[in-house]
């Protein structure tokens, strides 16, 4: 590569991004990984203890429960939310009446803060004043303390995010617009029903974007924090606890080494989930390639 004569200006233009990126991505990453091996309260000197924090975390029942809950979050994102989003995207792709308005409204909850949404759903689930119990009462079904009981708390917190499909729906919808119309016309002539067309044409054609959205939804599930923090604080009896919450509580208790070990596990587990799910879902690709 020949030397660019603008190299000085290029470097100058990259100074701001270097400052922000090193300060808020690279240094923090190194910091979290490094201090996860120490015992540290933020005030006195750090003490190197090797994998002590990890040992402690991985033998702690609450933390293991949090990992399990994070995995449930991730799975529900990837395998409940994405199928729902795909279903709606495929329906909208056929441009039924009002599809543009519907698309705009479906996306709406995604721009409202997680705090407001969580507060709103806390109100909806409220056993005395919320509309969910009032609604069920209309059908003679007895009300329930959704967030207060261990059996329903986790599903209740997850449901209110999984049902908001707008973000992924828009992405999947966009992918369907790249499929040539002639494919469907040919299938129609061959006597394929609408459902067969979706199954044999649309889904295979948007496979790449489905893998991407499943990965993203699972990554978001792994780092989930806000709704749990605001709706249940991890209760009742730790039944809704997640890793982000454990990290926050450890930090609040000045156990910074343990907090950063939690952060490291979060980063590693998130990466493993992403790599694994991409491997798993793209394995079929090789098969379909060999058919062609």
């Amino acid at each position, binding site marked *: 590569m020949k030397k660019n004569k603008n190299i000085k*200006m290029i470097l100058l*233009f990259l100074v*701001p991004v270097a400052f922000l990126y090193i300060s808020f991505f690279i240094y923090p990453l190194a910091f979290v990984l490094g201090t996860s091996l120490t015992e540290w309260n933020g005030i006195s000197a750090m003490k190197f203890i090797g994998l002590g924090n990890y040992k402690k975390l991985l033998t702690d029942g609450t933390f293991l429960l949090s990992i399990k809950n994070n995995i449930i979050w991730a799975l529900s994102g990837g395998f409940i939310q994405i199928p729902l989003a795909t279903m709606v995207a495929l329906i909208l792709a056929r441009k039924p009446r009002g599809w543009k308005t519907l698309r705009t409204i479906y996306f709406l909850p995604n721009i409202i803060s997680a*705090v407001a949404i969580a507060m709103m759903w806390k*109100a909806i689930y409220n056993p005395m004043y919320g509309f969910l119990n009032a609604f069920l009462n209309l059908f003679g079904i007895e009300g329930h303390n959704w967030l207060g009981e261990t059996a329903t708390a986790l599903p209740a917190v997850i449901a209110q995010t999984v049902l908001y499909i707008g973000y992924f729906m828009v992405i999947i919808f966009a992918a369907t617009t790249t499929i040539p119309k002639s494919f469907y016309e040919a299938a129609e002539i061959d006597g394929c029903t609408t459902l067969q067309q979706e199954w044999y044409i649309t889904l295979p054609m948007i496979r790449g974007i489905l893998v991407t959205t499943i990965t993203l939804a699972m990554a978001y599930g792994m*780092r989930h924090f*806000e709704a749990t923090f605001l709706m249940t604080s991890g209760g009742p009896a730790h039944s809704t606890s997640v890793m982000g919450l454990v*990290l926050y509580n450890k930090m609040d208790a000045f156990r910074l080494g343990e907090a950063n070990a*939690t952060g490291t596990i979060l980063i590693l587990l998130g990466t493993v989930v992403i790599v694994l799910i991409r491997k798993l879902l793209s394995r079929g690709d090789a098969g379909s390639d060999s058919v062609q």
Partner: protein
Amino acid sequence: MKALLNTLKWIILIFFLFVALYPLIWLLLASFKTNNLELQQNPFGFPEKWMFVNYYTAIVKAKLPALFIHSIIVAFSAVFVNLLVASMTSFVISREEFKGKNVLLTVLAAGILLPIISFMVPYFTIIQKMRLYDSLLALILVYSAINIPISVFLLTSFMDSIPRELEEAATIDGASFVQRFTKIIVPLSQTGLATAGTFCFIYSWNEFIMALLLTSSESSRTLQLGIRFFTSQFVTNYTAMYAAIVITIVPSIIVYFIFHNKIISGLTAGAVKG
């Protein structure tokens, strides 16, 4: 069979319409109701009397105007800093050849996948070291930084689509490096800047964890923290609490209805490339 499918289709569409809209409508109506008793006795209907006083209570007791101003300062400044830095970076990446460009791009893109919540402790210590703890500037810096990867991603793909001939012509006419950026690339990137800016605005306006972590006093509290403090302070006054939640939601909805085409097309551009 066809009729059945058609019915099913509309049931699905209306169900998700209901999920997206009804909670908001319910919340809005509830925020105008008289008191907790009315919430219980009249869960679905319009308020018997429209209690605008709930909004007054929310605004005065939760000190919402000050928090509102903080959120506006933080969100707009974060967007400004973010777009300035990201557009300079994207200009260089999109228009210049230099050693390490691909490494730079990969490192920046990897930032999208990092779970920022695992950085709670280092963000806290960095902000303290910068002597910015409990200041709006802390939030502005953190929010603009967190959005760098996604903004650079959106802006480089946008700038790649601007024809190079324009710049070549300008260079022949004697335009400098900086002039190519300020006089050609920035004005032609308005759509891309609007999309990236909207994403950054919505993120900054809605952000909660870092605001909770990096501020402590009312002088730097944002709206999102405000509703949480409000709800813990006035646990019994549900109607006023709902009014406070409505107040924090409305700006996002206004921004969305002005920019929804840009937001959706921005997502679309990202998706088709990704």
